[in-house]
């Protein structure tokens, strides 16, 4: 039962389906995996490129700011008013005031053009200074000598500071990036003043904050020393709550590096001009979140493709296996014994149509062989029938002749004539008729002759009665079926009967559209055991007529089929009745007769 349920899976079509599906499935899946990877890679690359562009833009903007400050520095440090203001000695106050006014004027102009500048200042060594304007007071507590931008500029370097809080103006604490350089003193070369310009830190922090690298991504900036110029989580880093691999970034030779755990991508852009490193941090999961829709689309595509493949494979396999199934049906019908089927050869011209052709030829040959066989069988049966019919028991002949001799010696001429003529009739019947069948009346006549002889031999011991309906006299029956049964009755039933007269009765009737002949005797009968073995071949009595019960049965069935034949009823010490059933061979005549009648 279980096997049948999954028969389709094991069928040829099922296997074609499975193979096709497997191939398509593998193809679709590999395609999908490759596509998704490729998409991820592309998205990653695009995203990295985009980040890189943004970061470079930040760097360029910063360079722009710094460049601007350098320009300002250039203008201011080269300005003679500034030098005069800082270095001229022995001025009267009026003249100095003029210088200071001019410088203040210049600073005002510069500050007006650039609103990202907090402070512009020049600092002399002797307490002369100017920050922004003539009124701004320097924070006396600001410890200039300890501030890098100041002492390094004094040493002659141009300094771009990291982000820091500028405290040079009293009560002002702004986050700035300071650019500073010395102002050459032509009068006393060792006594240089310092110029500085403070860039509003928000210019830079805004640049970084405006960059959108996903919700979690951010930008940070390191100066040439590796100090943080800008980092959104600067305080967290100082407290150890946020880990940033600043050293790795500083020492990176590539423009893109991954964080150790691979969750973040650092895009690095170093500026030659400022020495600063701008780093964009992007989170991989955010970067790839955009591919989700694409991935879903791929999955849907895969499902649709597999679905289509499934349908196609079923259609295809159906088409491919259709002739095969036809062939199988044909074979099945042949299996069931139907050789006369019309085989339609499919016009596909492939191996299966070859198979069909071969099968057709095979069926044809089998049919020929069978016809041949049937012919042979028929002939064989004819010969067998002939052989079976040809025999007249020599014992019977001898016994009969012996009886005749005895009767002749007794001078019983009448009886001799009677018996001899009966024997003559018997012999003539058995040799004259070459046909397989005889008319029932002839068969009965033949039996009567036989009974005549036997009655004379057994004298008072045997009586017989023949009662055959005259309507079936003309029925054609296989010959020699009644006489052997009568012979059987005499030899087995009556001969052994100890007392009383033996009686053989032959009845012929038309019953239920069949011809029925009953031969009954009142002999010794049979035990149920004997009755059971009545058709067995083994029970051949050599003394008896060779034409036995089984012989008769065999011939009837050879001729009319197994629906007809003999049946026995018997009771021990009461008698035996044999019933012969034969088809109605004169039905047409009878129907005609009825019509007439």
């Amino acid at each position, binding site marked *: 039962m279980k096997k049948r349920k999954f028969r389709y899976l094991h069928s040829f*079509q099922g296997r074609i389906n499975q193979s096709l599906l497997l191939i398509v499935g593998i193809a679709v899946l590999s395609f999908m995996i490759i596509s998704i990877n490729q998409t991820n890679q592309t998205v990653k690359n695009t995203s990295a490129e985009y980040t890189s562009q943004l970061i470079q833009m930040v760097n360029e903007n910063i360079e722009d700011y710094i460049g601007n400050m350098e320009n300002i520095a250039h203008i201011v440090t080269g300005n003679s008013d500034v030098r005069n203001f800082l270095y001229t000695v022995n001025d009267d106050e009026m003249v100095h005031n003029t210088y200071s006014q001019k410088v203040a004027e210049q600073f005002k102009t510069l500050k007006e053009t650039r609103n990202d500048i907090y402070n512009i200042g020049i600092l002399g060594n002797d307490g002369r200074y100017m920050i922004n304007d003539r009124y701004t007071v320097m924070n006396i507590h600001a410890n200039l000598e300890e501030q890098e931008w100041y002492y390094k500029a004094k040493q002659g370097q141009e300094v771009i500071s990291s982000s820091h809080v500028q405290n040079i103006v009293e009560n002002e604490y702004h986050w700035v990036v300071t650019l500073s350089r010395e102002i050459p003193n032509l009068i006393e070369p060792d006594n240089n003043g310092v110029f500085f310009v403070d860039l509003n830190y928000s210019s830079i*922090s805004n640049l970084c904050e405006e960059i959108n690298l996903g919700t979690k991504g951010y930008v940070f900036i390191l100066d040439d020393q590796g100090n943080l110029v800008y980092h959104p989580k600067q305080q967290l880093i100082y407290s150890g709550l946020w880990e940033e691999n600043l050293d790795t970034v500083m020492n990176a030779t590539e423009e893109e590096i991954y964080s150790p755990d691979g969750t973040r991508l650092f895009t690095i852009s170093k500026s030659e001009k400022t020495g600063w490193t701008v780093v964009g941090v992007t989170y991989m999961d955010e970067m790839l979140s955009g591919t989700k829709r694409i991935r879903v689309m791929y999955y849907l595509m895969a499902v649709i493709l597999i679905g289509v493949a499934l349908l196609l494979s079923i259609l295809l396999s159906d088409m491919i296996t259709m002739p095969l199934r036809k062939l199988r049906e044909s074979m099945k019908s042949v299996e069931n014994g139907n050789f006369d089927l019309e085989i339609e050869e499919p016009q596909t011209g492939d191996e299966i149509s070859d198979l069909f052709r071969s099968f057709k030829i095979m069926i044809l040959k089998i049919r020929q062989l069978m016809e041949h066989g049937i012919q042979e069988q028929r002939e064989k049966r004819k010969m067998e029938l002939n052989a079976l019919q040809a025999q007249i028991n020599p014992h019977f002949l001898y016994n009969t002749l012996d009886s005749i001799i005895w009767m002749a010696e007794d001078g019983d001429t009448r009886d001799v004539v009677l018996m001899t003529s009966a024997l003559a009739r018997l012999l003539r019947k058995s040799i004259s008729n070459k046909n397989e069948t005889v008319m029932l009346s002839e068969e009965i006549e033949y039996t009567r002759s036989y009974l005549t002889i036997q009655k004379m031999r057994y004298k008072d011991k045997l009586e017989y009665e023949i009662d055959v309906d005259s309507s079936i006299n003309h029925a054609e029956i296989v010959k020699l079926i009644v006489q052997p049964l009568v012979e059987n009755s005499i030899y087995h039933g009556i001969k052994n009967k100890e007392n009383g007269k033996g009686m053989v009765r032959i009845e012929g009737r038309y019953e239920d559209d069949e011809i029925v002949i009953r031969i009954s005797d009142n002999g010794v009968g049979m035990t149920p055991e004997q009755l059971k073995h009545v058709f067995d071949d083994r029970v051949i009595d050599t003394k008896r007529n060779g034409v036995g019960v089984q012989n008769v049965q065999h011939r009837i069935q050879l001729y009319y089929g197994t629906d007809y034949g003999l049946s026995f009823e018997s009771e021990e010490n009461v008698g035996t009745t044999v019933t012969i059933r034969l088809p109605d061979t004169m039905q047409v005549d009878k129907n005609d007769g009825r019509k007439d009648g």
Partner: protein
Amino acid sequence: MKKNENKYLFLAVVGIIVIAVVILFLYLNSEDAGSTGTEQQVKIVCIPKAMDDSNDFWTAMIEGAQMAALDNDVDLTIMSPRLETDIDVQNQMIEDAIAMQPNAIVLAPCDYIKTTPYAQKVVDAGIKLLILDSTMDKDFGCTVVATDNVEAGRKMGEYMKGHLNEDSVIGIVGHVKGASTATDREKGIREAIGEFEDQIVDVVFCNSSYSTAIEVTEQMLAEHPDINVIFGLNEYSAVGAARAIKKLGLTGKVHMIGFDSSLEEVSMMEEGVIDAIVVQKALNMGYLGVTIAYQESLSSEIQEDVDSGSVLITKDTIYTEENQKLLFPFHKND
């Protein structure tokens, strides 16, 4: 007939497998996306004591909270009274926050006693409670993220011990009498100065008001003219005391240490009125508060109390890279 049935069976089996695979994929996919999606986002309400652009402490704390929200993909709502003294306003906000049914409420209670019943409501509503900055008169068994004020006081005491000798006379200007922060800081100071503890002659309170601070300091100095060491226990106390010292011309004669930072304090420190200050890490407090609230919302495990830290800053260390960030919170519109 049988064959067809088998075919449909086969179709059905294949169909089911395909659908199962698709569902599996989509499921994995959606889980993938879940980390950035909004469905499973943890919702946290943070209620500080005050939100005011001029108040650097709470501004930094809120900034930290927002950073943590961004890092952990938390749906963060900030509700805050304008002033620390708006206790009723804050209590109303706690109720509003409960109505929002967040996973957790991060609360910096305005009042030691009056806030308690509202905090209880949070716990009763089954919402995770996390306390920031200061405690209340009831222990809710929840995580407290705050400056370890005893430790901060100890830092003040240890630094000032360098200026102490047997002749030192010590005065303390506190903010609110009985406030846990004031008590703890004082305790830390007393622990740290050890043998000089007896030389503390007076402890006065200013109720977090500059003018009161000036008054009480002046009063204290009038009562104890020999005081030469003053501790200011919060920004108001420190600035008030420093102003008083400056006003009385005692700069350099009286050593003074303050708490919390403001530009005025920095300025005073540059001037030399104030020797040093101890600064809390407000940003860290906010960051840790929200981060821990987020973690506890996911794991339901109560973490231990966290010290968000404090730093001692002197005139010389004002402009170090780290301290600048603490002392001068950077605002974009500066």
